[in-house]
């Protein structure tokens, strides 16, 4: 490990209240599954040195229903998501996404809240949450607020979350219609997404479609959705989608490829959910 362990500091609160107080008192980076954290510690690229371990906060682990709303605790692991009968029934595309996050060892540790907080534009669960209009529940000592997933990110690895707030849960309203998920990774497993999409087909003309790895943040394809809602042709929707994403060339893929594949996947989604 390139960063000296002795330079690090960890607090492990036993209750949510003490965790929130600790965040208010001094700047700390919350950690849970630590699967992203240790990659950057090992490579020596992380600046943070003071951490707050959330793993003892059992109350953030649960997956429940509250009326029509599916409530997923921020600490639910990707393995827990796959095993949850509620998630399997109500949000099967999140199960699909969870199966494709790293290998089993990562799925056993990595959490949904961590995937959101880490704010990578390639986060596999993010298009799912954006497509179903999930809300992120944020808590601080001052109280709780809900932010729609589609308004959560403000830019590359930036969000509306304040340093003294924690993600405690994700709330998913009832999803009607056909759910569709597709991850295009650098290989079949242990892959980082080059393009990742999630869609909901609510009716003949109604679709919700979100896409990751093609912009600084996950993109909810409002323009493409609008074209389809007005009864426009799929090719028109594809052009609209390709205009509302801003993919780049990077280590893993090219802008040209991402643009073409984004369009192909919208076509496929539309055809398969017809």
């Amino acid at each position, binding site marked *: 490990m390139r960063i000296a362990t002795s330079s690090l500091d960890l607090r492990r609160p036993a209750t949510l209240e003490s965790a929130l107080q600790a965040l208010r008192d001094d700047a700390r980076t919350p950690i849970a599954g630590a699967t992203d954290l240790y990659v950057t510690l090992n490579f020596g690229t992380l600046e943070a040195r003071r951490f707050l371990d959330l793993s003892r906060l059992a109350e953030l682990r649960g997956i429940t229903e509250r009326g029509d709303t599916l409530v997923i605790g921020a600490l639910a692991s990707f393995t827990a998501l796959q095993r949850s009968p509620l998630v399997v029934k109500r949000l099967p595309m999140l199960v699909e996404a969870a199966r494709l996050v790293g290998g089993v060892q990562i799925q056993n540790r990595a959490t949904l809240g961590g995937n959101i907080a880490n704010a990578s534009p390639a986060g596999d669960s993010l298009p799912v949450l954006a497509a179903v209009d999930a809300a992120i529940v944020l808590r601080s000592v001052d109280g709780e607020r809900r932010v729609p997933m589609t308004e959560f990110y403000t830019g590359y690895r930036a969000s509306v979350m304040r340093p003294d707030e924690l993600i405690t849960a994700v709330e998913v309203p009832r999803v009607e219609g056909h759910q569709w998920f597709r991850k295009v990774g650098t*290989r079949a497993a242990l892959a980082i997404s080059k393009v990742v999409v999630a869609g909901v087909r609510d009716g003949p003309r109604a679709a919700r479609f979100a896409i990751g790895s093609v912009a600084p943040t996950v993109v909810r394809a409002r323009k493409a959705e609008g074209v389809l809602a007005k009864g426009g042709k799929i090719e028109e929707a594809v052009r609209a989608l390709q205009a509302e994403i801003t993919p780049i060339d990077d*280590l893993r893929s090219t802008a*040209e490829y991402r643009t*073409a*594949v984004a369009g192909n*996947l919208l076509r496929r989604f539309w055809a398969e959910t017809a």
Partner: protein
Amino acid sequence: MPVTAVGQSVSRKDGIGKATGAAKYADDLTWPGMLHGRTIRSTVPRGRIRAVLFDFDTTGFTIVDHADVPGSNMVDLIERDQPLLAVHEVRHVGEPILLLAHEDKEVLHAARVLVEYEELPPLLDPEGSEQTFKTITIDKGDAAAMAGADLVVEGTYQTGHQEHIYIEPNGVIAVPEDGGITVHGSIQCPFYALKALKALLGPDIPARVVQTETGGGFGGKEEFPSIPAGHAALLAHKSGRPVKIIYDRVEDMVSTTKRHPSIVRHRTGVKRDGTLVAMEVEVILDGGAYVTLSPVVLSRGCIHAAGPYRCDNIRIEGRAVFTNTPPNGAFRGFGAPQTEFAVEVQMERVAEALGMDPVEFRRKNALRAGDTTATGQVLREDCSALAVLDEAVRRTEFARKRTEYEGTDRAIGLSLFYHGAGFTGSGERYLKSRARLEVTPTGVRIATGSTEIGQGTRTMHAQIVADALGVPYESVEVAQPDTKHVVDSGPTVASRTCMVVGKILEECAVEMRSELGKLSPAEYFAKHGAMTVERMYEPPDWIRWDDATYRGDAYATYGWGCDVVELEVDPDTFDVRLLEVTAVQEFGRPIHPALARGQIEGGTVQGLGYALLERVVMRNGAMANAQLTNYTIPTTLDVPEIDVVMLENPYPGGPFGAKGLGELPMDGPAPAVVNALRHLGHDIRAIPATPEMIAASPVAART
């Protein structure tokens, strides 16, 4: 002699240690008072070193630079051009400049060293390089016969770097003892490292090398470990304490050797009936910043560049060139995967241009016993090109599927390939490899320099000795390679460990048997005490080779292979899904069928990664994707199970009929994959054939 072990999949000598985690690799070993070592490396591809500044408290540190070298600062390999520690200039990113050691790893890694450079413009394009490490010309007949061809097909093919990704990164520990330095480490060729250490440490400091259990090599731990071994030795010498250097994954990927990128140009002249008239091949290998083994990689690449085909008129011209990138080096296949990729895609295109079936075209031109290769070698009965081709085509129902997949997202393609076993030309004669067999109180012990790096050296050598001596396999021990206690058997490379070193061991065992009479080794020991038999390798006496003209018997024998790949391309994402991969290979006779199968399965999967996934992204002379997340080797979900067929054609020059096998499986997968993509209409001429490349490739109409 009764054969009881050979041909059986006996239990691996090292199986239990590996299955229980008890086997000790370099990083598992510690010595009292041991320090940890770290290498400070160049961050620029080319420059002069202006200043080296220590931005840390140096108390408790051992610091070594080039001025601390007691002997020669140059790595003792083919050319002595590569410094162990840079003096005034750096030629590549990752070049070692300074060494630090400290007993506390955290303090060591926290130390900040600032190097100031005068940066110079780097040379990064191999085609633009006028600095050549080696040129080779192979001439057979008269390439001007091209003028008489009915059709001439041209093509340029490119292959990228490939990183070894042994799962155990490089690691060594240097221990001062008996007035000298002993290096323990993850090392494929202890005697290479010993030679380099002797040059580095000079005549007054004795050196010794002991191989630790080695977590994969694939050529990546052939010549390279001389550098970390030398570094650790310098730190140990200066500090008087044991020093361990373990590379982390990023350092290993950024700084160590890789497979040479290549550019290969073909011009092939054919008659309308498919007869090859003439072949012209130009091979360019990017050697990186120092010579390392590039001349011999180029040599093997050029010798294999015309493929396993009969053609009377061939000209092959190769050059290995300098660039300001980390030096490239040995990697399973050693130049042949690059040139065989090119020729096999070229042959597919020639068949296509002729409107001929690719199998028929290959069948017509494949080498047969009595034919001559590009170097003029007359092939003997151990030539199996047609046999592997016919079996692969039959087994996969190639013709039927070729037609059936038309108009679908599925496709099928094949490659025909061969690989020379052992050192090239007179190499085995110069090596004078030796092996030793010792009687012990309980049986016999093998004492060779051949290393176990996963391929099964210990097991397979013990099988050969057991049967040649007529003793139980279990009574044969294998000594850990330690240059103080074993003989130099030549390097563990070039598919030679079974065929060449195994052969010497077989002869040792036969000689020992005649000394033992009717006694078992243990009975002999009880009666007469120790006995040792040591022999040197004698290559077959018919081998003739001229290094000046590149004419003659390039290899004593060849292994032969035909790979068939069936795949599906996702129409939306251009992802390639491998459906079936069939590997038909002839390598004499398997000593241990399960180990041999493992070599073919593993080598084929490395070849499939090379074909589809493994892309080193170089930015300003440095590997930009030096993490396992971003340099993607195949996972369990990327490759199917390989259908392996081992055809037997015993080779009289090898032990129990065995030929070399280790590298052969690496040569075939990439062209078979690309030829299958061609069947789909994608005109791919470079690997890795990523989805991005497939998406961008022009799709010709399928014929």
